[in-house]
């Protein structure tokens, strides 16, 4: 019994649902209080103890449905102390005992390490291994003997019957392996794909991966949301403000009747984003803007600007109902003139008074200025006012400072400058913010 649930916990983890040891213990305790035959109650009990976020509900339901409908017409494993070898497949078949057959398949699957399923190419191999594991060879041998010694039409019928049952077993094993692939293999393949996507240049990412990328970006931002909830705290304590208390109680002949408390201070971080949307960095801007779109739901104090030569506030675009719509509007509404960082910073000068010691200034751009004035003075001014300035350059580091790039001039005033052209880089950015 415990093995079945342990497999279920592993399947959940495999689908990126976090299951702690404590939750496992709770789940095992919880299922001891309910009737396992009632799948509805079983699902509710496991969900109450293992499912910690509404976002994981869909995945949880999917894993549960696959896991407990494949084979668990009755939840359990073969009798304790028995092994597969103790069961005779021919007898099981003759009894038409599907429950035991399912248990044998599960046990064989476990022994053959089905959880390591990582590619659909392994399906055939696993089918054969499980068929062998449950003792199909004995059945084949039995059929072969019957064929050798057949005398009457009755024998022919028996042989046909056995062959049909063999087909049926093969089909059950096949279905079971397919379901197991959904539980273990699909996710392994997805993980592998994500690993590749993470380090691939964003420019080279295929359109069909767009949804997956969106999911990954949403996950990154969620990570930031949790981090920000730590930062967005009130600096408070309930301590007496001694100076103020003494001062205010002078009138009471120094007797401290009226107490005065430390005041609460709210630490509100601010993020200002300047995003180059010129053609040379367009693809990267789209990814950054999709992060910005999600960020504005978390950070109340966020100012976003886009530029090619002139700086334009894009906050109002970010209120669109979807990130795609917002990005589409931004890209279509910002004039596509030649990039001019000098002019952009000149426009930014009027925004300097709004920067505070809690402001993080993020700039995405290749710093290619078409030979114009770098106007570093403004960035220098911003540096004095901001908490930090982070510059994300989509070009590989080797290309910086070549040709019309002014990266060298700007990097002096930045707290951090880093290459940003893969999902991995964007993920690092979340840590830096």
């Amino acid at each position: 019994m415990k093995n079945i649930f342990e497999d279920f916990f592993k399947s959940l983890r495999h689908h990126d649902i976090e299951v702690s040891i404590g939750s496992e213990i709770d789940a095992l305790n919880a299922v001891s209080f309910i009737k396992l035959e009632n799948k509805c109650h079983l699902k509710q009990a496991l969900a109450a103890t293992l499912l910690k976020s509404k976002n994981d509900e869909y995945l949880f339901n999917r894993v549960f449905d696959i896991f407990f409908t494949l084979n668990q017409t009755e939840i359990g494993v073969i009798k304790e102390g028995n092994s597969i070898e103790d069961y005779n497949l021919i007898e099981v078949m003759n009894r038409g005992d599907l429950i035991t057959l399912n248990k044998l398949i599960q046990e064989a699957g476990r022994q053959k390490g089905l959880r390591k399923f990582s590619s659909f190419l392994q399906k055939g191999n696993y089918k054969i291994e499980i068929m062998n594991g449950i003792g199909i060879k004995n059945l084949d041998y039995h059929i072969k003997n019957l064929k050798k010694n057949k005398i009457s039409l009755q024998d022919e019928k028996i042989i046909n019957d056995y062959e049909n049952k063999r087909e049926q077993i093969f089909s059950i094993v096949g279905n079971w392996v397919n379901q197991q692939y959904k539980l273990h293999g699909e996710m392994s393949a997805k993980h592998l794909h994500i690993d590749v996507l993470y380090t691939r240049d964003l420019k080279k990412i295929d359109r069909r991966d767009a949804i997956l990328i969106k999911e990954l970006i949403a996950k990154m931002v969620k990570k930031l949301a949790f981090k920000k909830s730590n930062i967005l705290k009130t600096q408070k304590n309930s301590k007496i403000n001694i100076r103020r208390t003494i001062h205010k109680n002078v009138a009471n002949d120094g007797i401290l009747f009226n107490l005065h408390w430390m005041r609460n201070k709210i630490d509100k971080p601010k993020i200002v984003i300047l995003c180059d949307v010129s053609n040379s960095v367009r693809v990267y801007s789209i990814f950054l803007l999709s992060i910005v779109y999600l960020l504005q739901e978390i950070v109340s104090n966020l100012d976003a600007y886009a530029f090619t030569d002139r700086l334009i506030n894009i906050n109002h675009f970010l209120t669109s109902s979807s990130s795609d719509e917002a990005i589409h509007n931004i890209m279509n509404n910002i004039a596509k003139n030649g990039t001019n960082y000098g002019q952009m910073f000149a426009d930014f000068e009027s925004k300097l008074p709004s920067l505070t010691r809690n402001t993080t200034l993020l700039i995405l751009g290749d710093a290619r200025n078409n030979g114009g004035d770098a106007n570093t003075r403004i960035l220098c001014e911003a540096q004095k006012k901001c908490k930090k300035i982070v510059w994300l350059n989509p070009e590989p580091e080797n290309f910086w400072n070549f040709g019309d790039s002014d990266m060298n001039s700007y990097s002096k005033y930045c707290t951090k400058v880093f290459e940003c052209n893969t999902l991995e880089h964007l993920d690092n950015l979340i840590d830096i913010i």
Partner: protein
Amino acid sequence: MKYLYPNHCNTIEATLAALDSTGYIAQEEIATTVFLGIKLEKPILVEGLAGVGKTELAKAIAKFYKVPLIRLQCYEGLDESKALYDWKYGKQLLYTQLLKDKLNKIVEKKEEIDVSIEKIKNYDDIFYSKIFLEPRALYKALTYETGCVLLIDEIDKADQEFEALLLEILSDFQISIAELGTIKAVNKPITIITSNNTREVGAALKRRCLHLHINFPSAELESRILSLHLPDLSSKLNNQIVAFVNSLRDKDLKKPPSVSESIDWAKTLLLLNAENLELNIIKKSLNVLLKYENDILEIKNKLDDILFENNKISK
């Protein structure tokens, strides 16, 4: 540490019936989680949109067990002095003034300062004893002999620091007070924590709780809820209200109507002597059901279509 509550909720079905008896018509998953929460002696973190009955659940449990409900409403800036305990500083100061003469007698004028401090040291614990302690909701919940239901409402509005403070209480049902030591629960409270999901609750807190997400009830369940709260409501109007509210929930609204709002709306319609759900009467009372001007305008524009669709389905 005890966990003594009458053993009425021995099965999921019994828990469902128990909640039902208090007037809380629950979905089965709610009953399962409450049943497990009581059996495993674990707090329950209840999430869901505003108005789906999270707070009512705690009230129903308290009503069923006939124990007090202690409610701690969370907000930004809530700290241990407001949630757990505080020292009665005013009383301490008043007592020091009143006992000034006594203190003068203990300390003789001519003696050295260190000798005086040594003498006073024997009395300073008196000023940090239970008579000067102001118990707040969490402290009170731990000290109830009969047990109680502790409702920590809208935890998502409190800060991360406050969540950390709760960890000790939720896992061990005890608190550590520097001056008094560890205070253990006399009878573990049945703890319900609610969240509207305005921010993600910390993983450590989630680990200590069972998790329950309350969705909008099914039409059948909502109809039963309305009948229970408003026995005078005709079944025809009841069905129409439920169908209308459910169709609004499918729309892309800023705040879809919750159960509490459909109850309020039904009350309003009764007051307006409505017998049928008609266009005029809906227009007049839509502000009871929807809370945002944009939502109201949007639905008013689509009202004909919605009613037409609902009528088609009911026919």
